[in-house]
């Protein structure tokens, strides 16, 4: 995967994803209430909040895996909250999603997992192999090509899941707690990959996390292609394309930049940060 292979982004001001007063209840409990926010082209939104607040549900609403009871959700300008499932399948191929535990298919090799979409589209084997190698090289796991998910560590599974989400060069990326349950070193590797993806491909994304250190690392670092690793931004500078959302009891209580987050007077935000 090189920057040369990325098709030039069409200049567009309309949001890639927009929620308008979306609410959903599960099993009689109101999980999300009147959620409204949008993701602009090239923007990375970090969704913060404690466990069980509805962050994963929000991500599943974003690509139509769940449907809101009220409100509307627009993905690539199309209203998806009432869209038939069969139409959604085509739309979802433009979205890459990384699940909490990776959600790799146990019975398939790493190659077949990463190439899953391409195999369904009957892409020739040689092309598949080439693109899988490229995607695995991006996550630095080329040697796992013919292994099965059961022989991979938790961190490696997440990285393979990232490769699977990236292989079709999606127009939106959804990361569901990609560092959850991982040790600090592996978490840093995953965050570095996400920063690399953000800075190299500039794909708009939503990242769900409850780990502040990961969220801050995304704002205060950039990927240096020459060095091949992430480096800190100069002191006082932050990545302006990376902004924050915070959920509390199913409602968005904060939407803004890192500076605004740090200055927020909201007691819940203060408690969360401290």
């Amino acid at each position: 995967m090189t920057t040369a292979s990325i098709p030039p982004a069409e200049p567009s001001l309309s949001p890639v994803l927009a929620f308008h007063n979306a609410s959903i209840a599960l099993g009689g409990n109101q999980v999300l209430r009147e959620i409204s926010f949008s993701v602009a082209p090239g923007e990375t939104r970090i969704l913060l909040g404690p466990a069980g607040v509805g962050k994963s549900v929000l991500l599943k609403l974003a690509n139509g895996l769940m449907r809101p009871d009220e409100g509307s959700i627009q993905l690539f300008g199309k209203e998806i909250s009432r869209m038939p499932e069969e139409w959604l399948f085509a739309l979802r191929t433009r979205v890459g999603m990384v699940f909490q535990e990776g959600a790799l298919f146990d019975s398939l090799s790493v190659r077949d997992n990463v190439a899953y979409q391409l195999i369904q589209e009957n892409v020739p084997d040689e092309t598949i192999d080439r693109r899988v190698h490229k995607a695995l090289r991006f996550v630095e796991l080329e040697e796992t090509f013919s292994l099965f998910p059961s022989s991979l560590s938790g961190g490696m599974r997440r990285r393979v899941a990232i490769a699977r989400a990236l292989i079709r060069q999606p127009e939106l990326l959804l990361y569901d707690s990609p560092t959850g349950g991982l040790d600090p070193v592996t978490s840093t590797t995953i965050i570095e990959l996400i920063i690399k993806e953000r800075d190299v491909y500039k794909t708009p994304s939503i990242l769900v996390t409850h780990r502040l250190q990961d969220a801050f690392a995304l704002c205060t670092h950039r990927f240096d292609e020459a060095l091949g690793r992430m480096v800190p931004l100069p002191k006082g500078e932050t990545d302006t394309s990376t902004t924050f959302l915070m959920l509390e009891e199913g409602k968005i209580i904060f939407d803004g930049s890192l500076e605004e987050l740090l200055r927020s007077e909201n007691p819940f935000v203060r408690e969360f940060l401290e």
Partner: protein
Amino acid sequence: MLIPAFESTAKKLVLTVQDYSLFAYRAVGNLFRPPVYWQDFLIQSDIIGVGSASIVILAGFFTGGVLALQSAATLSAFGAIAMTGRFVSLTMIRELGAVLTGVMVSGRNASSMASELGSMVVTEQIDAMRALGVDPMRKLVTPRIYATVTMLFFLTIVADAFGILGGAAVTVFMNHQNGTQYFSMAWESLRYPDVIQGMVKPLFFGYIISSIGCFYGMRTTGGTQGVGRSTIQAVVTSSVLIIFVDFLITRLLLGLFAG
């Protein structure tokens, strides 16, 4: 106290039946709209058909043997021990071959479908599949249903054949009767309605096994404990439904052929 509990149970039951009907309708309809996953159909046919062959052969053979043992004891009291072949072949082909194969395959495959799909649900693999733009109903459910219906048909024929062979083995080696007479009675007593009855049933049973197994698997909730619960529900429901539907089909076909 009792009435609300009854009302809640009744509502749950009606909702489950409604969900199942929609699920089964979608699964069957998918075969007539692309994409159709033929490779998955062949893989599932191998797992269900070839994988179940040994248990079906053993079950069929020994059931035929037991039928011959039991019937010979009763028939000899009336001096009709020569009718053993007729008794075994009619019972196996009209009834036991299909039901026995159905129950055996249900125990093996309805459970495996429910647990496999259930595990995929709780580990978010089904959501991942949907997120990758692939319909799990088409990819996972439809091939399993068509493979089970097709394979159960052939497995029933195998069970019938081995049941008759089992009866022959008991008749010849234990009851010391004439083998030619056994096979002659088994063959001559058969009529087309008997064969049709035996061949129609596995089509319904195969559909019940696979649709129930997939249905409970796909609606699994509650982690690994939920997978276990789905597996039990799939086996119990499909086994009971097989016996119930067998009764309905038998009544219907007997009425049809009697006319």
